[in-house]
């Protein structure tokens, strides 16, 4: 469990460095960048879910007063398939064609053309003046229907990847994958009982409150600057450059503050279009999506069908588990079925399992990452099946999980052996939690589920600058989406041995700071934090060397203690300790400014496990669910700023509850989303939720200097099944599909 390490500032809860600007309205978000002489850009979107684009005529739009540029897919360079844009959404051709359709519109809302005009009104009128001739094709909207051999085909060049033999016919199934160990059928034969089910979950949206926005300007020497809300300015720079066949060095991306992302702002939509329009018009171009555009045309996560079968002995030990997963990828490949397959059994130590995954193209928006992409859907299936199993075994659901729990040394289903992990610690903490030992209210139900996310490392850079008065600037390149500047400052202050207030962290643009992969994969506090710690160690090394020179001793004879250079024990030097301020003041005489740097490709991001449970009540006459309590227990490794760790857990719980109860993409038969707004895409509001109780477990990650594990994504995984299991407990009927909306619950209750 938690190590008895005495930290000076880690684990405290100071005010974040960017806080004051965010509570006063000063902070600049994506739509807050305006430039002189700026134009407004708008996108024309396909009114059909599936159509061949026969002709696009911009002439009438271009002839309008105030219209300065207009583009279609034909104005973009041809991009070949096969180049991956790292973390920013997959194959460059797919992203390019999602940004602007070429010969086919693949979903309702797919970008078909764009204009830039002197006002938003003129831009909107110009869209009406664009003449597009479509050949409307039948859409395919359901994952199982899209897999059928006779289904309408989205892409004649899409041949299923990873089949043993290259298929001779194209298919909507973009790829398949499998993961297995042992002998599943033999495992089922050993089982005393078997549970199985099929579970469907529709598409859901990240639902960040800030719509996508950017402002781009291209100067006469072909240098572009793009201000935008993004989870990664460097990965966006790569994506824009690749899509427009531009040199990375001629592209500067300045990240604004970001009004939520949850994975959804890892992908470019407007940015390449704004750059192209600005280049054509010779003026800056600002583009802001409406909320409706956000829903229709930016990354939801996959709608899924998951089938799970689990066999176990009477003592609860699982003998075999099998899963079949089909994930909608939307209009282009990119469904997170891989992580879905790798996570589904990850909390458990299984001898025999088999997972088969399919990513399937449908005429809906291209999916984007959404917080632990792929895991909530598959793990919902497994965690619901385990709940059924626990009931049949008459076992406490936490005990069932403990009997099968993965631990240090367990070989993960996706390959490596786990180092120290906190799953068992989470189960134990949940079992002891007062909310779990408390009796259930009359008529209420309680549900339990486990969560998991791999977490990633990847590339990060950091620079630490010692100012002339001893204050410290940390420069890094990860947009602060939930308090990461505070975490960086805390780790820097701890490493340097100075008060938190002495350190300020800034997020730089692509020209002012070193390369960082995007804020995603729960990597920032882990990987960029590691870079910050290394850069601080670089500062300390330099400070020791400066002190040694000052004192005329060897560097080894100087130690860094409590923010000061001091002579090492036993060193006979009659000198006063040198603080950071002293060393900064003396820097001009000891070699010039003191600057620490680190860049790394972080390895060993520790997996984060969770256990959630919730109590809720169901109105038997209306099917309405009232959430009475929700408890999230999660292993954070080391909570650098516990308030923001709790915030991640609470926010993930709320998103998961929304997904479980009410959120879904609703389509009509023509493939038009019917609820493209916050009125009918029902994210939880304040009065829907109780306080969300959190318990942070700290099982140190051996790969991080302070033991950090990423915490951002795991919180959304368990709430889906925890809620489903609580509804099952409350009404005595298992409902396999989500969302557990009032009509679905009432129908299950036999209301009609």
């Amino acid at each position, binding site marked *: 469990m938690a190590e008895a390490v005495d930290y000076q500032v880690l684990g405290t809860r100071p005010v974040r460095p960017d806080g004051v600007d965010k509570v006063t309205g000063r902070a600049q978000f994506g739509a807050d960048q305006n430039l002189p002489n700026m134009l407004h850009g708008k996108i024309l979107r396909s009114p059909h879910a599936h159509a061949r684009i026969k002709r696009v005529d911009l002439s009438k739009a271009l002839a309008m007063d105030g219209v300065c540029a207009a583009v279609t897919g034909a104005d973009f360079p041809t991009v070949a398939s096969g180049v991956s844009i790292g973390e920013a959404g997959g194959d460059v051709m797919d992203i390019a064609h999602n940004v602007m359709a070429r010969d086919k519109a693949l979903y309702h809302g797919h970008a078909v053309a764009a204009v830039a005009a002197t006002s938003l009104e003129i831009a909107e009128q110009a869209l009406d003046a664009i003449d597009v001739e479509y050949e409307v094709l039948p859409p395919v909207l359901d994952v199982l229907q899209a897999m059928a051999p006779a289904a309408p085909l989205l892409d004649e060049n899409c041949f299923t990847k990873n089949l043993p033999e290259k298929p001779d016919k194209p298919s909507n199934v973009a790829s398949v994958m499998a993961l297995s160990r042992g002998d599943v059928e033999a495992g089922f034969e050993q089982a005393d009982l078997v549970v199985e089910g099929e579970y469907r979950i529709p598409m859901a949206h990240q639902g960040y409150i800030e719509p996508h926005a950017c402002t781009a300007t291209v100067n006469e020497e072909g240098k572009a600057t793009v201000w935008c809300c993004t989870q990664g300015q460097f990965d966006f720079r790569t994506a824009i450059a690749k899509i427009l066949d531009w040199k990375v060095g001629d592209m500067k991306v300045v990240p604004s503050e970001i009004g939520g992302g949850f994975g959804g702002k890892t992908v470019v939509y407007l940015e390449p279009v704004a750059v192209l329009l600005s280049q054509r018009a010779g003026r800056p171009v600002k583009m802001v999506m409406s909320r409706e555009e956000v829903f229709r045309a930016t990354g939801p996560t996959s709608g899924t069908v998951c089938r799970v079968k689990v066999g176990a002995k009477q003592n609860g030990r699982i003998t075999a588990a099998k899963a079949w997963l089909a994930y909608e990828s939307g209009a282009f490949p990119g469904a997170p079925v891989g992580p879905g397959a790798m996570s589904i059994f990850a909390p458990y130590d299984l001898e025999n399992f088999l997972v088969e995954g399919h990513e399937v193209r449908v005429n809906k928006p291209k999916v984007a990452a959404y917080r632990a992409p792929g895991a909530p859907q598959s793990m919902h299936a497994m965690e619901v099946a385990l709940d059924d199993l626990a009931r049949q075994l008459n076992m406490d659901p936490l005990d069932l999980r403990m009997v099968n729990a993965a631990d240090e040394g367990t070989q993960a289903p996706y390959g490596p052996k786990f180092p120290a992990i906190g799953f068992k610690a989470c189960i134990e903490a949940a079992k002891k939690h007062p909310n779990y030992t408390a009796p259930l209210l009359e008529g209420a139900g309680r549900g339990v589920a486990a969560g998991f996310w791999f977490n990633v490392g990847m590339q990060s850079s950091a620079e630490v600058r010692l100012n002339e008065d001893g204050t410290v600037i940390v420069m890094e390149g990860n947009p602060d989406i939930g308090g990461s500047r505070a975490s960086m400052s805390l780790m820097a202050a701890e490493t340097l041995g100075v008060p938190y207030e002495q350190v300020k962290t800034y997020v730089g643009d692509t020209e002012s700071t070193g390369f960082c992969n995007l804020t995603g994969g729960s990597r920032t506090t882990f990987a960029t934090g590691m870079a910050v710690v290394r850069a601080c160690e670089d500062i300390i090394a330099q400070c020791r060397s400066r002190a040694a020179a000052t004192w005329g001793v060897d560097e080894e004879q100087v130690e860094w203690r409590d923010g000061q250079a001091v002579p090492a024990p036993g060193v006979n030097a009659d000198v006063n300790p040198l603080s950071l301020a002293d060393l900064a003041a003396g820097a001009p005489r000891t070699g010039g400014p003191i600057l620490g740097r680190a860049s790394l490709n972080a390895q060993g991001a520790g997996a984060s496990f969770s256990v959630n449970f919730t109590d809720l009540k169901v109105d038997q006459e*209306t099917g*309405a669910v009232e959430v009475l309590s929700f408890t999230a227990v999660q292993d954070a490794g080391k909570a650098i700023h516990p308030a923001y760790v709790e915030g991640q857990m609470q926010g993930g719980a709320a998103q998961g509850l929304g997904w479980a109860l009410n959120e879904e993409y609703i389509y009509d038969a023509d493939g038009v989303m*019917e609820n493209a707004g916050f009125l*009918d895409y*029902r994210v939880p509001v304040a*009065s829907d939720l109780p306080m969300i109780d959190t318990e942070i477990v700290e099982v140190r990650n051996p790969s991080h200097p302070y033991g950090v594990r990423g915490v951002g994504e795991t919180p959304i995984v368990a709430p889906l099944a925890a809620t489903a299991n609580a509804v099952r407990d409350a009404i005595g009927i298992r409902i396999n599909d989500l969302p557990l909306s*009032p009509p679905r619950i009432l*129908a299950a209750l036999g209301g*009609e």
Partner: protein
Amino acid sequence: MGEFAYVAPTSVADAIDVLQEHARSGRRVQALAGGTDLLVQLRGVDKAPRTIVDVKKIEETNRLDIGSDEIYIGAAIPSALLNENAELKALLPGLVEAADLIGSSQIQGRATLGGNLCNASPAADTTPAMIANRGVCVIASGGGSREMPVEAFCTGVGVNALAADEFLLGLKFPRPPARTGDAYLRFIPRTEMDIAVAGCGVSLTLDDTGVCTAARVGIGAVAPTPLRVDAAAEALLGTGVGDAALAAAGVACTAASSPISDKRGTVQYRRKVVAVLCRRAGAIARGRALGAA
């Protein structure tokens, strides 16, 4: 014709002049009260230019009179103001609750009974409550003014009974007699911020033995327009408004409904839930009538 215009007349006569002038020229005109529906329409579904007539600067649309026989509520009074009026809340708690259910605190600061009614949504929260309370529309018209019962005002989805040179001035309600109680309940998937999936308003008067001597029931979101359900009222009349009578009233509401399945609910769900709401609202109204004795 092609441009937007905004006018804010300060008298009924001036407003009627604007409407008549537009009726003659054929130029489109639309009245603006709280704007919480109109602004959404302007942004999305219907951006076409028109003249917007802000009716909030007119005395008659802002007056709130609680008389000995009659209660008058100006069409442009925001919900928040109704909710802050203790006397109104005591007299017509169900109506005020219905107004209080429209959207968020922010919406409450703008949204009005008049706008809610004129927008003619089948799911308007206040309309069934107004029907239950025997609401009457006071309409300013080129020819003077006219009145009509609330239940006659909505003629279809998004369509109301106003002629081109008319606008809604206010709503009148008889002052509820002794031992009268009203209630409005709606069902939404969340606790706030949704459009009603079904709604039901009930007003009851009991005699001193607890027998129902007058009843009105209005339902919403289960038909193209909000409806008065006389069969439901009849099920309550002459009873002590016990479980059986309430159940019968609920059944009558289900029978009167002709809902659709859409993104907010299914036909089956709406038919079932409108009965539940009728029973529950009826029980609350009964409790209030007894308490208000």
